């Protein structure tokens, strides 16, 4: 069978493709491009923070830098990356289907995403936005003198790509599973993509209408968040965070799904507590919709509402913790191979645990009064998003690289890169917990002299982390052209995607596979 890479080599065959695998590759290039832009902003920020005085950029420029970093990293990298790259590529293969339910909608989603990205790029090139990625009113709707409209429009458009992908994946999982593949035989990666899609579909529309309302207020000079009319700026925050909290679960759930695949394969064991893991994924998705007020504890939100949101936030940590226990129980007495994907998975488990526990600290009302808007919060979410999510993504990329490229990456170099990333990450972000605890506020480009040493350590860590990220970029690209060719199943893993050639054939399977047993059916040790 022809591989999907060989089926047509013209530009048109790529830009007009209906093949989910090619669309995944298109997305890969796009999100990597945006990652580099967001990372550049981070480099400049950490460089500025090397010294207490604000001497690299003005405070106004710094505002635009952290806004750029947040907007690009959240909406144009973290939210799309695993669903549109790994999800698009692997999901149909993992369920034994020929493609997603709506291939043309899939291609359309990429074009919609690129259009949103172009609008965001325009806003950046022409001076950027200084409101922070959270766009709080009335600053964003009334007082800011930056390209809020264009940036918000870009995010609005990109949101439709999210919704389209979500609809596609939900229907795909419901309708295109191979014969015998019942719900409780699905790999956990599929469960995680399914739950993520539910969040994408239900939460993103609220972001869309919120951005519209903010843009209307900005454009017409009068709006429903305007205190002069009796409006409430806090209503914007409720609307914004109703989406943006579930959004963080859009970001992390696919990563959790990847980790389950990696842990089972490299411990050569069935996942511990499969049904509990699947139910936890759904619980995280559901409970994640109930906690958004924890971003607003000190905003003048009612204390009683704060109590309710604090309690619910404690509850949402439980299924996540269960997943960590189950991963560890899976590794326990497994036959472990410390291949690169597993190194990333182990890094995820450690760093996600730290990030998650500090989240519980922040969910504690009285503690949050002191920690809100400090570097403690910054460290918390970077531990989850970067220490967790990005490591899971890299682990998944390495794991499925043979299926995507048909080649093997250089293992020793890859392991070294994983270790460098882990060390660089901790060097960058652990000091930030301390800085936040000591009171250093976020979104400031100057700070008191007493915070100097920790900031220097953090910036050095960022340099190491940057090197660590460049390594896979280089060697994965190299291996695509020069790496040794991979067989259908180099890891000897279970999962339908490994029952077909590497790189995946154009139509996925010679004949539709039939499933007769549970997932992760590794022989007992």
């Amino acid at each position, binding site marked *: 069978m022809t591989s999907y890479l060989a089926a047509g080599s013209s530009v048109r065959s790529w830009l007009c493709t209906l093949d989910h695998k090619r669309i995944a590759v298109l997305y890969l290039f796009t999100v990597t491009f945006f990652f580099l832009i967001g990372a550049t902003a981070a480099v400049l920020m950490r460089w500025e923070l090397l010294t207490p005085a604000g001497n690299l950029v003005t405070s106004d420029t710094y505002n635009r830098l952290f806004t750029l970093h947040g907007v690009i990293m959240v909406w144009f990298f973290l939210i799309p990356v695993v669903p549109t790259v790994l999800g698009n590529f692997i999901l149909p293969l993992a369920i034994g289907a020929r493609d997603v*339910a709506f291939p043309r909608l899939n291609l359309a989603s990429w074009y919609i995403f690129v259009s949103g990205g172009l609008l965001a790029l325009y806003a950046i090139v022409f001076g950027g936005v200084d409101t922070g990625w959270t766009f709080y009113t009335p600053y964003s709707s009334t007082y800011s003198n930056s390209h809020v409209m264009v940036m918000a429009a870009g995010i609005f458009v990109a949101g439709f790509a999210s919704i389209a992908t979500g609809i596609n994946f939900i229907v795909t999982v419901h309708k295109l599973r191979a014969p015998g593949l019942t719900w409780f035989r699905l790999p956990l990666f599929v469960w995680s993509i399914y739950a993520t899609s539910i969040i994408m579909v239900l939460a993103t529309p609220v972001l869309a209408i919120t951005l519209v309302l903010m843009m209307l207020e900005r454009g017409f000079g009068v709006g*429903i968040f305007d205190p002069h009319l*009796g409006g409430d700026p806090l209503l914007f925050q409720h609307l914004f965070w109703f989406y943006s909290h579930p959004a963080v679960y859009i970001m992390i759930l696919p990563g959790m799904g990847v980790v389950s695949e990696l842990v089972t394969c490299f411990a050569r064991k069935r996942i511990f507590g499969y049904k509990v893991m699947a139910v936890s994924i759904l619980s995280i998705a559901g409970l994640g919709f109930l906690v958004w007020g924890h971003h607003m504890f000190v905003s003048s939100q009612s204390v009683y509402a704060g109590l309710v949101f604090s309690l619910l936030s404690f509850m949402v940590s439980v299924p996540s913790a269960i997943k960590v226990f189950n991963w560890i129980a899976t590794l326990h007495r497994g036959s472990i191979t410390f291949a690169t994907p597993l190194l990333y998975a182990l890094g995820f488990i450690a760093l996600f645990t730290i990030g998650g526990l500090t989240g519980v600290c922040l969910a504690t009302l009285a503690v949050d009064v002191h920690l809100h808007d400090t570097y403690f919060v910054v460290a918390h979410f970077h531990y989850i998003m970067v220490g967790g999510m990005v490591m899971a993504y890299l682990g998944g990329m390495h794991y499925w690289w043979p299926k995507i490229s048909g080649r093997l990456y250089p293992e020793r170099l890859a392991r070294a890169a994983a270790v460098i990333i882990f060390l660089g990450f901790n060097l960058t972000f652990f000091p930030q917990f301390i800085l936040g605890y000591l009171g250093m506020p976020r979104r400031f480009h100057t700070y008191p002299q007493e915070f100097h040493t920790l900031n220097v350590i953090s910036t050095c860590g960022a340099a190491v982390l940057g090197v660590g990220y460049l390594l896979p970029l280089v060697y994965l690209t190299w291996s695509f052209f020069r790496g040794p060719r991979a067989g259908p199943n180099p890891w000897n893993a279970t999962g339908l995607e490994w029952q077909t050639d590497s790189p995946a054939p154009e139509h996925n399977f010679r004949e539709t596979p039939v499933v007769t047993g549970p997932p992760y059916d590794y022989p007992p040790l």
Partner: protein
Amino acid sequence: MAATTPFRSATQRESANQLGLWTLIATEVLFFGGLFTAYVVYRFTYPAAFAAGSHRLEFWYGTINTAVLLTSSLCMAVGDVMIKHDRRRALQLCLLATALLGLLFLGIKFSEYYHMYREQLVPGINYRAEGPPQMQLFILLYFIMTGLHALHMLIGLGALTWLGWLNHRGRFSSTGHQPVVMVGLYWHFIDCVWVFLYPLLYLIPHLT
């Protein structure tokens, strides 16, 4: 290029299309839902101002428009039944009736907007009404909610035109008329949004 369909049968494809469209409807509920949330919050907070604002709207425009939309939904539903019996001409007439009623709705809506413009009730353009300042919140929500609804109507009209063209080319039959079903679902849903907008905007009772 993977040109072959991922589905194993037409029935499977149809049920997938149905599920997809109902998922889309769920997203629309949340899209309008943000506006409904704002409405609920402010109505609880400023009941008198909202009642005053509602009183400034034209009761008969709203009521007649509701009847117009309900009739258009009937026409759409009948059209769906017609094509299930291979009656293409009847479907064409039903599509035409649905679209005309939709146009009538928009006509009444825009004359309502114009009327409010003449009364200097358009926020951001010429708002100069006496009454509590929070009444402008209600009027704003009125314009945004009905405006978004009207935008969806326009999209629906476009979809109906597309259906009419496809039907004219003989593309529909009793066994193959998925687009009619899908556009029908969309049209009925937009009608439901109006069914809720109507009492919330036009029928707020005066407080004693």
